[in-house]
């Protein structure tokens, strides 16, 4: 019995370690350009120039919209050619509903900075893209923001990770990253 209990403890520890590892890579996602950066209220997304974590201290207003950067030199850089960097930001209002996502498919170019503003039309849903480490749950009436660099080329499934009704298993969208 003690041996079996030990195995159970080891398994839970392994699961916990995997979870911590996933969280760790997620938190450092913007530095590595791999995992998604889930926007908290104090987060200002990814700097469009250096692709690091943006700061509220460095901002630039272009066509009525405020963009945030990681350092003063990035602000100077964007002033020279704003379109070069801002055209690389793809903002998508992604709505989940029973049983699909809109827009579908979502098409971006490789190395674009992708911003998802995620909402739900009806019951709680999850937006899960395994390859980009995105797993966000959203309830009707709230908006969750996720920002990441589309650094992997290909066609990826967007799945719902929160049970949302009898069509939950068929709920799927497509996220396409083109060259």
């Amino acid at each position, binding site marked *: 019995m003690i041996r*079996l*209990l030990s195995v159970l403890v080891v398994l839970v520890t392994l699961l916990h370690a*995997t*979870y911590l590892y996933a969280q760790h890579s997620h938190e450092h996602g913007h530095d590595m350009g791999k995992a998604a950066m889930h926007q908290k209220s104090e987060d200002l997304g990814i700097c469009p120039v250096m692709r690091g974590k943006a700061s509220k201290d460095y901002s630039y207003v272009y066509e009525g919209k405020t963009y945030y950067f990681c350092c003063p030199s990035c602000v100077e850089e964007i002033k020279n050619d704003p379109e070069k960097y801002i055209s690389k930001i793809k903002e998508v209002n992604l709505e989940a509903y029973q049983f699909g996502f809109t827009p579908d498919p979502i098409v971006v170019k490789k190395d674009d900075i992708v911003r998802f503003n995620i909402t739900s039309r009806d019951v709680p849903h999850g937006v899960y893209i395994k390859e980009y480490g995105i*797993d966000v*749950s959203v*309830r009707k009436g709230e908006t969750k923001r996720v920002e990441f660099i589309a650094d992997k080329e290909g066609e990826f499934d967007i799945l719902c*990770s929160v*049970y*949302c009704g009898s069509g939950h298993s068929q709920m799927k969208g497509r996220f396409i990253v083109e060259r």
Partner: protein
Amino acid sequence: MLKDKKNIVIALLAILTLIKIPQAEIRFVFWVLSGIIFCAGIDFLINNIYWKKRIFPKSAIITGFIISGILDYHQPFYMLAVIAALAILSKHIIKYKEKHIFNPANFALFTASVFKLPLTWSIESNIYLIILVGLYLAYSIKKIPHVVGFLVFFSVFSLIDRINPFIFISWFFLFIMLIEPKTSGFGMKRGFVFGGITGITAFLIYKLVPVIDIFTGSLFVANLANPVLQKIRG
């Protein structure tokens, strides 16, 4: 052969898996087969080595079907092995008065949900078949009070909150997982209370912590309360 209700459940799960295959990738087939092999293998080994019993692991096969059918099949195979081992070990370790407390598949899936592994419920491929066979199963193993208890409490709370409960009830959960014979208790009153606890908890999770899977979370709580429920008469 059909006298043993486990055979009916295995047949139903196999049919549901087959229905899902055309919509899924070939990986889903290997995923489900692996789930069954992991669960049945671990259970067989534990029974042989520790308990010195030779039992054909039918319950473990059901557990394997449920785990692999609900857990997202795009996850790595080692994760499926870990979740399968958790399910079977929970059955052999977490006991009260010589009976396991938790529905093994549910225990493992709830743990998976806590650790943010997505549950896509792929096995819920035909709700009409699930309801039809599920009603027969619930009736024949005297678990209708459990189903009614869940539906009453979950529906009442949802309707008070102006939500249509039937748009997001999992019939697979209701008719396959909730009524698992060994961990849900017997009797009219006990069954109704067990279902009620599950229904109320599911609603609370839905409202307060939707990150956790509402069904596996609620059954985990009800399983935990079950030893206390056994003190209720009838």
